[in-house]
């Protein structure tokens, strides 16, 4: 109990520090509805359905509509819900930090991550390194950048091509790549296969890749980011494809928001990121499991 108590004090300080950082950088804090009528259909994310719509799995769609409405830099810290996700790093109700910036791409978000985490760690008196469960993590910038392609060559027993064809990409990621990423420095794993990024812009000159990255620290997956897709027709087609894939795997199709698709017409080139707040708190408190950084796990209710 005492460990949880000190973790909750640190959690509050971390969230206040994140807020301070984005306000300082000129971002507007927003609160979008958690109860929505149409989510972004994604093959591997199941929503919590209610009698009047869905609890959002991410505030992404509403936040992008705000970019189209003329807000250039916005952030939000909110609860998100994903059905069936429970493990030592997963809660079906968890806290996400998302931020979006116009006239930017995913490289700007990498710089944001570096500055934000250093700001928060510094505020806790960690200095330029943090300790996570016996592992020292050096926060000196620039952090490591490893392409998904190179990571497969270095660590996966099968090629990226084969992993995609046999539906084993995530298996290779979890079993062979994630455990081998450098744990002594934060790592941006970037340029994901185009088929694995339904809301991301494709990379200029290499249409088989999407401008997407994930941030790993001390072996924890902390954030997922991309340069945003702003083409409404392309987005509609990709949502349809995700719903088809869901159906193929015996999962329900989700409704698509026309208002979101239409709003993309007015959306400037932008980049956005979802950052797991609970996991950042784990990292900065040394917690072994996500249960140790929240007031109550679902099983305790």
């Amino acid at each position, binding site marked *: 109990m005492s460990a949880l108590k000190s973790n909750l004090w640190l959690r509050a300080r971390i969230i206040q520090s994140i807020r301070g950082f984005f306000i300082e950088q000129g971002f507007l804090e927003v609160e979008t509805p958690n109860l929505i009528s149409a989510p972004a259909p*994604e093959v591997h994310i199941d929503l919590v359905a209610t009698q009047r719509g869905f609890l959002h799995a991410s505030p992404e769609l509403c936040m992008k509509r705000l970019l189209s409405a003329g807000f250039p830099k916005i952030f939000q810290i909110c609860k998100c819900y994903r059905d*069936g996700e429970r493990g030592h790093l997963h809660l079906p109700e968890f806290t996400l930090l998302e931020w979006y910036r116009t006239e930017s791409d995913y490289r700007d978000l990498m710089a944001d991550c570096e500055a934000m985490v250093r700001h928060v760690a510094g505020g806790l008196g960690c200095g330029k390194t943090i300790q996570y469960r016996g592992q020292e993590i050096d926060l000196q910038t620039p952090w490591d950048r490893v392409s998904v392609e190179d990571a497969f060559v270095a660590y996966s027993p099968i090629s990226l091509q084969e992993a995609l064809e046999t539906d084993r990409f*995530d298996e290779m990621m*979890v079993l062979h790549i994630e455990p081998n990423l450098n744990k002594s420095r934060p790592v941006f794993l970037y340029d994901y296969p185009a088929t694995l990024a339904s809301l991301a812009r494709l990379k200029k000159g290499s249409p088989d890749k999407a401008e997407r990255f*994930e941030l790993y620290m001390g072996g924890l997956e902390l954030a997922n980011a991309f340069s945003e897709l702003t083409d409404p027709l392309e987005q509609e087609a990709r949502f349809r494809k995700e719903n088809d894939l869901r159906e193929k*795997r015996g999962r329900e199709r989700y409704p698509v928001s026309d208002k979101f698709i239409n709003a993309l017409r007015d959306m400037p080139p932008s980049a956005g990121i979802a950052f797991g707040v609970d996991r950042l708190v784990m990292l900065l408190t040394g917690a072994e499991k996500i249960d140790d950084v929240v007031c109550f796990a679902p099983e305790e209710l």
Partner: protein
Amino acid sequence: MTVYQASDLRKGLKILIDSQPYVVTDFTFTKPGKGQALYRARIKNMLTNRSDEKVYRSVDTFESANLQERKMQFLYNQGDEWCFMDQNNYEQVTLTSDQVGDAKNFLIDNLEVSILFFETTPLDITLPNFVELKITKADPWVKGDSAVGNSKPVTLETGYTLRVPPFVEEGSKISVDTRTGEYLTRVK
């Protein structure tokens, strides 16, 4: 027969894989944010005791292993054979020393135990929590002998040795907790 989904996996669950019974000994849920859920399980074959590491996806399903517990009475031990009898139908079954394991420290004639079966194959034995056993060898208690301390070693009729309070004499019966292997009390 119950059918389990990969998301039902948890420590202690007994499932059937390739017609063999397995028990899940460790389990972790992993999922890259946008990727598919992977259920990593450490499983132990209950027939061979061999452990294995497996990765399952949400589409994988399992049948429950058809396991049955039967009350049986211990009859005798001869070499590697430990013989038990079902008191309802007088059916006899033989376990090996390996299968009996540490339970042999507490097995006395006619003791009623519970044996776990997979179909007709015995897998495992569960003893009553407390068993009464006779002390066959103990040093006599000398009053005021502080060198003995708070306990002394004794040997039981099964050959098992444990520590008991110094006043417990050879020939007396004691109750032992089979889960810890420790002395509990003297029995009249």
